[in-house]
């Protein structure tokens, strides 16, 4: 083989190595996702299987949960007593899911006030700080937990601005910091992957409040995997 050919071969080998690296990097980036968190099973007081999900919403998820975007708004989920940043939840099919959300964020108001009404939960109500309600003031909405294909629409009222002990960065402690507690139960249907999202323009600094965390899995969007 001539010198030129050997050089060429070297170049091609380098390019091939580069191509393999690019392939691996793009593939691993494309398939990366927050880990799926299974809802904890609770012993049902009669009736079908029941699971429990405990979530919190933070105005900023904090550097511990998201080094790249500590100031992004997001949901955290409780797993084995620890808060982790994930929005992919696994729940059993045809069962009741009981959800507790600790709301640490202030209000932003809904773009479409229609979504301030509760739909698709048991009794059509949610418990806000222990009181059952079926709609909230759209201006007070801080986030929503909405699974369109399951028909679950839950608006989450925000923490008043004047409240003391506001949580600056996640994970927030429900024991000491100002929050509102929202509890509701919904029934899952058949197996499948259902998307859920927030409908409140809560991504500060982006157009219409709907960029960044509102369009990234692991913050304000996720999946309910019904298995």
């Amino acid at each position, binding site marked *: *083989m001539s010198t*030129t*050919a050997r*050089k*060429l*071969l070297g*170049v*091609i080998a380098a*390019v091939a190595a580069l*191509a393999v690296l*690019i*392939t691996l*990097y*793009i*593939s691993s*980036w*494309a*398939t*990366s*996702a927050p880990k799926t968190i299974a809802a904890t099973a609770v012993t049902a007081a009669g009736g079908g299987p029941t699971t429990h999900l405990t979530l919190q919403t933070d105005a900023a998820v904090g550097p511990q949960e998201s080094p*790249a*975007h*500590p*100031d*992004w708004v997001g949901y955290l989920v409780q797993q084995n007593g620890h808060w982790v940043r994930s929005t992919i939840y696994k729940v059993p099919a045809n069962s009741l899911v009981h959800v507790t959300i600790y709301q640490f964020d202030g209000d932003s108001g809904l773009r479409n006030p229609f979504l301030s009404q509760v739909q698709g939960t048991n009794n059509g109500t949610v418990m806000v700080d222990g009181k059952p309600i079926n709609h909230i003031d759209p201006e007070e909405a801080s986030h929503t937990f909405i699974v369109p294909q399951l028909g679950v629409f839950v608006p989450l009222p925000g923490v008043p601005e004047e409240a003391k002990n506001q949580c600056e960065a996640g994970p927030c402690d429900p024991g000491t910091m100002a929050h509102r507690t929202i509890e509701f139960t919904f029934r899952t249907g058949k197996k*499948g*992957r259902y*998307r859920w999202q927030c409908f409140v323009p809560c*991504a*500060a*600094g*982006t*157009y*219409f409040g*709907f*960029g*960044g965390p509102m*369009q*990234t*899995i692991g913050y304000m*969007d996720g*999946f309910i995997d019904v298995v």
Partner: protein
Amino acid sequence: MSAATTAAAPPAVGRPLWRRLIGFNLLTAVILGIGGYYLGWWIGHLVTEGKSFEYTKAIDENDVALLLAYFGGVIGFLVGLGFANYPVSRMLGRPASLREKEEHGIGRYFGLCTDHKVVGIQYLCGIGLFFFVGGLNAMLIRTELLHSNPTFVGPNQYLSLVGEHGTMMMGMMTSGILGPFANYFVPIMIGARRMAFPRIEALTFWLLMAAGFILTSTIFFGGFPTGWTGYEPLNDQAVMGMDSYIMFFALVGLSMTLLGLNMLATIITMRAPGLTWSRLPIFVWAVFATSVLMVLAAPMLIATLLMAAFDRTIGTSFFVPGGGGSSYLFQNLFWFFGHPEVYILALPGFGIVLELLPVFTRKPLWGYRLAISGMLGVSLLSFFVWQHHLFVSGINADLRPFYMLSTEIISVPTGFIFLCVMGTLWKARTSFSVPMLFCIAWAFNFLIGGLSGVFLSDTPSDTDTHGSFFVMAHFHYTIMGGLIFTFFAAIYYWVPKMFGLNFNEKLAKAHFWLMFVSFNSTFLPLFALGIQGMPRRVSFYEPKFHTLNVWVSVSAFVLGVSMLIFLFNVVYSLIFVRERAVQNPWRSKSLEWQVATPVPVNNFEQIPVFDSDPYDYGTPVALAGGVGKPQVTGAGAGGG
């Protein structure tokens, strides 16, 4: 016909390696590029300290910094390559160095070189690399679509892959034929020794490489959700990865404008004596028509992206209704570039097919003037059809009959090309070499693409197909079937001249047949998916579409395998076997095949004189004569 080789000066030997690494070369370019990047990043953060940029803190993102960083990186990269040397030395009153062209050895392929033949090969390899990245994205997209729900890749990553695939192909491949083949062969075909602006020619290539790298880097910044169209206001909302798209397309636009200008100047001013407009090879005419489009359309893209960048960084509202802008504005501006853009992709393909047919049919080109008017007609009309992309958008609904008419009229000049192809094939003596197979495949693919376009140009019918997989299948037939097939035809046809080496024909035929069959098996079912109601750019679809999607995905993987066969052939034939090509293996009468292989640095010892077009096949040999008139007799024996 003696375009003698000038004796190659021996490469400078004896200089130690470390000494050769210092200077204006790719290594310096990369170092300065990285330096420029961080400088821009730092300035960007400095600038955004002010109160009016408060939002950058809330979103942990800084579009100003990233755009400036990209800008600084590109400038540093170009300076490192040596693009500033000439203007700086002229400004200082020093004699300009012409060193760029005189370098020898393989090193010149990795730096600024003003030899149009080097640039052509640089383009071929560089574009090939990014074609690979774009194809890889397509493979990942099809893997995801094996499932009816987002499973394999996340929904944002899916959109980013779609966007990167589309943008890479639409941006990079605009130069897919003009970059490698026009740069290499237009000067030779018109009897010139170089392009009109050799440094600009090199600049277009390196701009494109910087752009491709920037687009690939989008995944470091979260990707972008808009697809290749970059529609506003979604564009404004997107994370920093969107800036990669903006910078990429702006650089591609700049590269296209310069490439087009250079081609126009070369073709208009540098033709050899006797090469009148009516003797110009048809490929040169296609390059001419394409260049007109590039020069007129691409600046529009740069301006549009500048407005988008202002919206994203300093809070202007060109495209947001809340500040007095309009989401329609971007659509109009974008498609005013975007529709000519798809003809920028299609026209060089016409040129390749019409150029190659006479060689393989042993007949003159049938309807030479009709073909020229067809190509010029397409390029003229393509500026009057853009609103057919907005048929259901609600803007100017009263004007839809006009855009329906203009869009349908553009099929008339396209029909000219088909008539010329058919006329040339009639009673021909066709030999089915690999380039010819790709040309025939072009005719079939482009026919399907064109006829499906009729459904999209008809407003009532477009109501069903707009934004569906039908559109996607349509433009893959015209662009992949039209451009990529002719791109491969050109590779198989001209590489024996460019590299002086032959491809393995068995592997080449395997590549063709696998590619042709799997291409159709991939994209024909997409028409069916589209008319049954599957939208584009989704990673969710109804379970009833599952079987067909799996079929398409498997076909797409086979299509990917056919590309690997091609890659294998490149490595096997051009590096291991290295079978010397004869000077004129196709017995072509075109000028580029009459010069020696490899083509000497200055192409011709004496500028040739033309007295006919290069298509006098089928005529008795005795008619040939004159310097510029290539002789067919014994041409094949002179190779070496």
